[in-house]
């Protein structure tokens, strides 16, 4: 199986307070920010690696995972980390952050799919910076491929996947035939969430995203990293323009209520939610 996994770097979510908007609201200040891979994208990569190996012998690859990111040269770091974790090849689409939005990225990915011809595009369900949750869906539409979003479990079957989707109150199973688009949710990295055809169903992974093993870190530099131009992939696509940024209003301090009656009355009369 060949899988394409798009990765995005985001401002370190553990240091979200460092994200600042200048007084004129013209942009988000990015100097001095620490970048981390978007956690959901790391989960997607983990799931993709599990689908292309036998869990018992993960050093032998049984498929190909190609990671792709959009950004300036410094985003190579994000790709190298993915290569160190186990991805086989990387592509960076050279561009500036301002040139991107969900639609542009989806169009460029659709174009990449034409040449890469993956069986599956596996994405994080959303990036934790803009939280837009749309690239996977737009991409499936552009490609006219079957799609399963918010995957909590994935099982490989002959010619397709059985995907357990997170829905309110449970997990909803769908079958998709290759080629397909899948977006992953939090639980996709649990110990028994993803099985390739090769991996024994009794096998348990360690919870979470695997570590980049030291020998693999040292090999990452030797793995292929291809650079493409955004203009070649998404020529003439319109980009959303942001008019103004503002921080969300500060949360007001809470209050203590005497009893349930007061709570109900306040919810009804002040908050007007009942």
């Amino acid at each position, binding site marked *: 199986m060949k899988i394409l996994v798009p990765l995005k770097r985001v401002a370190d979510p553990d240091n979200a307070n460092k994200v600042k908007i200048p007084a004129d609201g013209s942009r988000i200040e990015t100097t001095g920010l620490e970048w981390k891979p978007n956690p959901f994208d790391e989960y997607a990569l983990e799931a993709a690696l599990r689908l292309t190996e036998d869990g018992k012998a993960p050093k032998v690859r049984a498929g190909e995972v190609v990671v792709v990111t959009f950004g300036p040269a410094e985003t190579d770091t994000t790709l190298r*980390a993915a290569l160190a974790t186990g991805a086989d090849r990387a592509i960076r689409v050279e561009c500036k952050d301002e040139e991107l939005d969900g639609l542009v990225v989806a169009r460029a990915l659709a174009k990449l799919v034409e040449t890469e011809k993956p069986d599956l595009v596996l994405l994080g369900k959303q990036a934790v910076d803009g939280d837009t949750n749309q690239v996977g869906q737009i991409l499936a539409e552009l490609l006219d491929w079957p799609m399963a979003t918010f995957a909590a479990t994935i099982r490989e079957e002959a010619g397709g996947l059985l995907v357990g989707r997170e829905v309110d109150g449970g997990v909803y199973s769908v079958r998709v035939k290759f080629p397909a688009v899948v977006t992953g949710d939090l639980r996709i990295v*649990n110990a028994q969430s993803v099985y390739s055809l090769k991996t024994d169903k009794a096998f348990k992974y360690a*919870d979470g995203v695997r*570590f*980049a*093993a*030291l020998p693999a870190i*040292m090999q990452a530099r030797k793995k292929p990293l291809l650079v493409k131009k955004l203009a070649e992939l998404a020529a003439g696509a319109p980009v959303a323009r942001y008019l103004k940024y503002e921080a969300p209003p500060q949360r007001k301090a809470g209050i203590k209520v005497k009893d349930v009656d007061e709570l109900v009355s306040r919810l009804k009369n002040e908050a007007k939610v009942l």
Partner: protein
Amino acid sequence: MSSQPQNRYKADLRDLHFVLFEQFRLGEVLGKAPYDAWGEEEVKLTLGEVHRFATEVTGPLNGVGDREGCRLDNGVVVTPKGFKEAWQRLYESGFKSLGVSPEFGGQGAPRALSVLAGELAAGSNVAFDMYPGLTVGAAELIEAFGTHEQRDKYCGKMFGGQWAGTMCLTEPQAGSDVGAATSFARKNADGTYSITGTKLFISGGDQDITDNIIHMVLARTEGAPKGTKGLSLFIVPKRRILADGSAGASNDVKTVSLEHKMGIKGSSTVLLQFGDDGQCIGELCGGEELQGIRQMFRMMNYARIGVGLQGLGIASAAYLSALEYARDRQQGSSAKEWKNPDAPRVAIIEHANVRRMLLWMKAQVEGIRALIVKSAIHLDQAAVLAGKDDKTALYHQGQVELLTPLIKAYASDMAFQVSEAAIQVMGGVGYTQDYPVEQHCRDAKIFSIYEGTNGIQALDLVARKLGQAGGANTQRFLGDLAKFVAEHGSHPVLGPSVQNLGKAQEALGGSVMQFLQWAQVGEIDRVQLQANRFLTMMSELTVGWLLCDAAVIAVDKQKALPEGDPDRLFYEGKKQAAIFFASQVVPGIVGAAKMIATGDRSAIDIPTAAFATV
């Protein structure tokens, strides 16, 4: 995931990067043999992954290990839940073979990277880290001194985590005085040795993690001279090794008892009985008898720096825990509002006394980190220059020799003091098991005792290291410091701090002269009486120097950043920590030198019977 224990460990990766790349310019050795495979990207990726391992795997087990401890079940040690799995994951990840040579599957990383990876490993779970830590140490002994056959037989399996290793020096009557060991090795006709004896306090002496344990045992051969000169080093497996390299029947090494300790409870400390039934077979490490102490000594520097790292890891963890709590805990109001009973509550970090404790902790932690990385960079430079510029390489090696007792003793003393201060900062909750700092404090106490007590380190410093190479190492060290003082004594921000270093250096030099004088007239006991104090003085001076050195860099870097860049705060912290240490700690060195100069010898003069008449 939810049923799993919570991680409490936190590390300051920003400072780790600063010390490596900005202060000690690791970039200068990267890409050069023997570190040609290493670039900045690999170093940062590695630290990032080791950090993740520390917070996701070993960190969550730290409290578990402390509460569960080890137990002895039918002569076999049972380690805390999760240790075995953590060991497996550690060796899958390859992080423990960072510094191991490529010959044995390692990555031959620069020491400066290995030590900071060591900080993260020890800081997240020092008890767990003892098992792989000693295993690496034991394997390095065989790598350095074993025969070809022994290297083939043991090193790969030990570096790879299939087998563990221990160091067996201590015996009931031979603690600090290693030369008093009486374990005996009788040569057999086939060239092997039959080992008999008792080894006490052996870390990792038994466990249920690996299927074999390779004990490195100091013992006496037939007719060996008295003292350390009569010791030879033996490789003694727990289970006999079969022809195919797998572990076979018992080798007559019995775990007699397990210590119940103040801290590092997840690390087993046992009494081992070798050859009770006359069936314990060992191999001489290398081809020659009576080389044991020399071989051990070669490895001692690394082991002692390793203990310093344990101290750094715990001190940093305790500091960051206390800091997090102090930013959050509301108590009292601002001192400026002392007249106003309705003044808003403030976080305890707003109180001057709490800030003082926290800044003291920060300065100690970051200064000790710089001290350890300094010595590691000296080793890396020595490795890069070897064969190209042996004279300079020798200078670097000499600095490591000199700094090692400071690292071992000062970092371990401060680990205990910093974690004690962490408890104090947090008040009552710091004393409870709801927070990790009381465990840090208990865990840290052992660091000043094992691997040569800090009393022994101080003697090593004054009696051996100061005068080593005809005093050249010390002179070069003081010369480097004097150069820094001359260069930055009128620095616009740090000038007064740097001048304090100059005064302290002069005072320290005075104490050295005083020691020489006493030594010349045979009053060695006066020197010994003051050795610990001197070690602390020299450590504080070095830490003060390295903090000021960092601050000089930080002031420049801060200036170059635009207003509002979050990294400006990081540099501000470096600057303030240096100023604090230079004005609140360094001047004490001058006072301490005065105390030495008085020549007070009451602790010697007091009759032993007069300490108490009960």
